């Protein structure tokens, strides 16, 4: 496993770690059995993500992906956050090893899961959330 400097930076100094007590949306994906759980807290005002925090149990790349994902959506609109792909997270980290791509998937899913929670709690329809399947059994061993 060789991580980029960006990954190591976000792993060592993760941005936005923590909780938001009065979060507008909380999402959790992953599975402790698989060794990874990601929880995202969103503070949303006027369709803008004012604050975001995360807690992650997982590998270095899971922690770095969480950190990067929070940076990428902070201050953005819900729409923009919805359009964040795992690939964008991985690219922003200067790439992830093939076996670790799924960690970035977790980050994308954690955000969507938190937005889903927000949409339910606030009874707001968000385009694109309907047909998302939060797959716990993501595969760890797909290489290419």
């Amino acid at each position, binding site marked *: *496993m060789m991580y980029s400097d960006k990954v190591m930076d976000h792993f060592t100094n993760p941005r936005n*770690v923590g909780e938001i007590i009065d979060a507008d949306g909380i999402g959790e994906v992953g599975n402790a059995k698989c060794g990874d759980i990601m929880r995202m807290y969103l503070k949303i005002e006027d369709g803008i993500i004012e604050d975001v925090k995360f*807690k*992650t*149990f997982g590998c270095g790349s899971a922690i770095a992906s969480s950190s990067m994902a929070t940076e990428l959506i902070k201050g953005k609109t819900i729409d923009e956050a919805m359009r964040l792909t795992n690939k964008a997270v991985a690219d922003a980290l200067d790439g992830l090893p093939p076996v670790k791509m799924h960690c970035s998937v977790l980050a994308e899913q954690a955000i969507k899961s938190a937005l889903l929670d927000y949409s339910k709690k606030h009874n707001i329809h968000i385009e694109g959330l309907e047909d998302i399947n939060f797959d716990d059994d993501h595969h760890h061993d797909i290489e290419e």
Partner: protein
Amino acid sequence: MTKYIYMDNAATTPVKKEVFDEMLPFFSEQYGNPSSVYSLANASKMAVEKARERVAIAIGADKKEIFFTAGGSESDNWAIKGIAYSQKKKGNHIITTKIEHHGILHTCQYLEKQGFEVTYLDVDEDGIVDLEQLRASIKDTTILISIMFANNEIGTIQPIKEIGKIAKENDVLFHTDAVQAMGHVKIDVNDLNIDLLSMSAHKIYGPKGVGALYIRRGVKIDPLISGGAQERNKRAGTENVPGIVGLGKAVEIAYENMEDSNKKLINLRDSLIKKIEDNIDYIRLNGHRTERLPGNVNFSFEFIEGESLLLSLDMVGIAASSGSACTSGSLDPSHVLLSIGLPHEIAHGSLRLSLGDFNTEDEIDYVVDKLVTIVDRLRQMSPLYDR
């Protein structure tokens, strides 16, 4: 970061200077092919035979019972497949354990696809194999029992003498993967009734890519690598002369220094265990507390995941491992930790610190100090910790 602390000696070790010095002439000066008849080849041939003798002496074998291989994995594959294919008229049943190295496990799984039947014995929460289950598993078709001498992840040492006795009483061949035990445990293949034994040089300060299989005289085994007449027609291929010389010297040193080295390692190990237990909570020592390799320390730290622990340790100059080095490409929790009953999420948070001849008490203190901080930091980040 100024110093680098290597605590992954169960994954591999540096080649010791005395070992390398003996290997050196065989690369570019005494390069003769041992199979050749001319005098240049004599030095190679004699060096290979000297190494064979050193290995034989260390385990109480005859030198004609030692066959050089390319490492522990080849020895394991050869033992299992070689016996399976050569004895398949007698039977198709093999007994092993759930905590073997993948060199054994994957080979057994491969043989299952070829029509062999394999029993994987359970172990208790310390990793000790269930002897009653072993006895009960033996049947008419059983041709081989393969049980590792000491486990690479949790360090547990098996009751090999009793296992050997059971195998002998039932007239079944007994193979043991002694890759981790070599140099740390006194081994006499006759006293222990061992018929086949795997070892690997790079775990005992010898070079990577060379090992040996002990095969008791009279045991019929198919070759894994056929071809030239090397190794008494049992293992083809131009001999890795410098590697074999390195293995011989490494084994000799390991057995000459064993008592002193073990005493030192056990002191360090027990000190490291105590200091971790005194300073960090929500942890679990994996493996047997006393029937344990002198250099093995393995803990599970709840609420955190192994790889992030390893990365954090690496950043402060500490090399360690989470389960077997061979499996760190995969992210499944270790089959060994699951077999001793750990829940998945706890198995994921395990750390192996394996000590070697070059570690010091100062390093122990440094590691514990850093570990306290790192574990705390990762727990603060973990959604499981606050539950």
